[in-house]
């Protein structure tokens, strides 16, 4: 496959064969090396062959091999001729990141951070095969899936102003929980209000560098050493089941012959099946918003208890990085509503977009990019260029470059915990093996990912944070 270098951070797969549009990859020569070792480029080319695709298929700087679509894949489809694909969203629907600010400084939490982490570990259920603290009826779970974070706020988790600072205001109105299967609901009932495991985490962080003080100030971030809390999790088993259910249903309806990859199964957006998937996916999105809303509430409670106050713990923002939605974009000079798929990609809307809350409308939305365990994370601001370059999208994280199996062979959880301790980072997890699998060395360099994002112009660097205490599922 021929890869054409357009400029230092932009590469293109020219249209050939069945491709309906070219594919653009935002990357650096360093990141490209690991992309070339897996199937990322082949998968990105396959996406460019799907019906109704608009303009270009994109791969974000943290792109890597997924199933069907690559991770870090962004694609937009025409509403009449285009498709919607569960594989273009991913299994963990509305996997996302929520960031809370605090008015505490590093020195304020220093003496109490062990206690803070221990208490958060007790308050936020995590790990595999464990339920949450709530005993919900199926009817209530359906309400959660209908109303998202709004449900959580109405039931005493957090404040109404959190909703404004959540993508989609914490609720996709397209949700229709009546399309969720019994199995999806069965998996969701015990899991609302749980962090999960794998790459999901909760971190107490400190501000390490401020690149753009003006925008940072608008986001509520003002000082080096300021303490923040980052929550990374998704829709748990409910979302995974929705993905599996609709991959199966679409296969049975449309068959897979003619697809270069079975995971690219899709349905026309306007079809009944396409609409059912969209409404179910929206319900799973809402489950995840409610989930992070509840976890954030428990974190505030812990700060109140241990630090004496949770005043000033405003939400900076909550972003989803596995989602499909309808948005208006400039397609060859014309504004047009399209169905955007962001799979392992974050929305990065610049100043002026009506989808972002008024408080951020003059500077662009906060884009939260978590690093791997024990490394830096970043807050970027969305840009107007991103709308031209990537349908208003940028990276979502570091992106793996080593398999979990290999990571386990090379690293030991105990050693990693000790290495982090030497760097002043506390770590608590439900599993040593989980720590080894999430070793920082198994991930791409998040610093390089955000640098590419900034240089290309699809996300502007605002703040760099580093972990103080890490809780892993």
């Amino acid at each position, binding site marked *: 496959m021929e890869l054409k270098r357009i400029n230092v951070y932009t590469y293109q797969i020219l249209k050939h064969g069945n491709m309906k549009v070219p594919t653009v990859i935002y990357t650096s020569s360093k990141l490209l090396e*690991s992309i070339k*070792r*897996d199937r990322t480029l082949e998968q990105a080319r396959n996406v460019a062959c799907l019906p109704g695709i608009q303009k270009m298929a994109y791969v974000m700087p943290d792109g*890597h*091999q*997924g*199933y*069907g679509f690559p*991770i870090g894949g962004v694609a937009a489809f025409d509403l009449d001729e285009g498709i919607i694909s569960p594989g273009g969203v991913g*299994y*963990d629907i509305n996997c996302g990141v929520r960031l809370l600010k605090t008015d505490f400084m590093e020195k304020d939490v220093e003496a109490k951070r062990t206690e803070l982490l221990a208490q958060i570990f007790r308050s936020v259920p995590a*790990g*595999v*095969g*464990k*339920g949450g603290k709530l005993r919900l009826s199926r009817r209530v779970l359906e309400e959660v899936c209908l109303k998202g974070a709004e449900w959580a706020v109405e039931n005493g988790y957090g404040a109404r102003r959190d909703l404004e600072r959540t993508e989609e205001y914490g609720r996709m109105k397209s949700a229709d929980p009546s399309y969720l299967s019994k*199995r999806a609901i*069965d*998996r969701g*009932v*015990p*899991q609302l209000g749980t962090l*999960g*495991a*794998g790459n999901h985490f909760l971190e107490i962080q400190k501000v390490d560098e401020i690149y753009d003080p003006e925008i940072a100030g608008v986001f509520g971030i003002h000082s080096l050493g300021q303490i923040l809390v980052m929550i990374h999790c998704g829709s*748990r*088993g409910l979302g*995974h*089941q929705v*993905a*599996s259910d609709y*991959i*199966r249903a679409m*296969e*049975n309806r449309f068959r897979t012959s003619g697809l270069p*990859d*079975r*995971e690219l199964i899709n349905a026309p957006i306007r079809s009944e099946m396409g609409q059912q998937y969209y409404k179910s996916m929206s319900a799973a999105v809402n489950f995840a918003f409610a989930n992070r809303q509840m976890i954030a509430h428990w974190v505030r409670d812990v700060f109140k208890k241990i630090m004496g106050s949770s005043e000033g713990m405003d939400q900076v923002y909550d972003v989803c990085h596995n989602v499909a939605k309808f948005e208006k974009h400039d397609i060859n000079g014309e504004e047009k509503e399209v169905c955007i798929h962001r799979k392992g990609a974050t929305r990065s809307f610049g100043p002026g977009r009506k989808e972002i809350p008024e408080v951020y409308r003059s500077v662009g939305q906060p884009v939260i990019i978590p690093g791997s365990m024990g490394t830096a994370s970043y807050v970027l601001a969305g840009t107007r260029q991103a709308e031209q370059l990537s349908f208003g999208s940028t990276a979502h994280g570091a*992106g*793996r*470059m*080593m*398999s*979990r*199996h*290999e990571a386990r062979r090379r690293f030991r959880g105990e050693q990693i915990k000790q290495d982090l301790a030497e760097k002043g980072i506390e770590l608590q997890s*439900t*599993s*040593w*093996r*989980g720590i080894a*699998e999430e070793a920082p060395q198994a991930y791409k360099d998040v610093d390089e990912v955000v640098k590419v994002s900034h240089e290309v112009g699809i996300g502007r660097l605002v703040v760099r944070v580093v972990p103080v205490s890490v809780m892993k*599922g």
Partner: protein
Amino acid sequence: MSQDQKKKYQFLEHTADAKFQAFGHSLEEAFVNAVYATVSLMWDREKIGRKIQQPVRVKGRDLEQLLMNFLEEILYLLDSRMFLLHSVEKMKILRETDIYVLDAQFLGDINEKRYRPHGDVKAITYNEMEIHTNDRFMVQVVVDV
């Protein structure tokens, strides 16, 4: 017996997810070993009690879909009932006119503190799924972790 068939399963390199091949003298045995490979990513099944019997019946239009639905049952029972699998018994795959039907019994226990699962599998995928039934029985699966 070939080198492959001595092993129940083996993991292969895969950047983001987990990829394995499971082997058997029959399709049933290869499917059961695929269950054990999937479970090995989450807990040590040898340590799980054999207290609860869970009958399982899944169907599939083709063998790939049958395998997908069978493996997904592990995740469904884990999330909805905190069921941790120890072993699979009474495994049988039948081909009816245009559909495969699989019956089996899962043995295991409800999660308790002492079991301490160590990892998560989010979903079973079709990505690079292969099922060989010619000279040997082998299934290859990538799971999303």
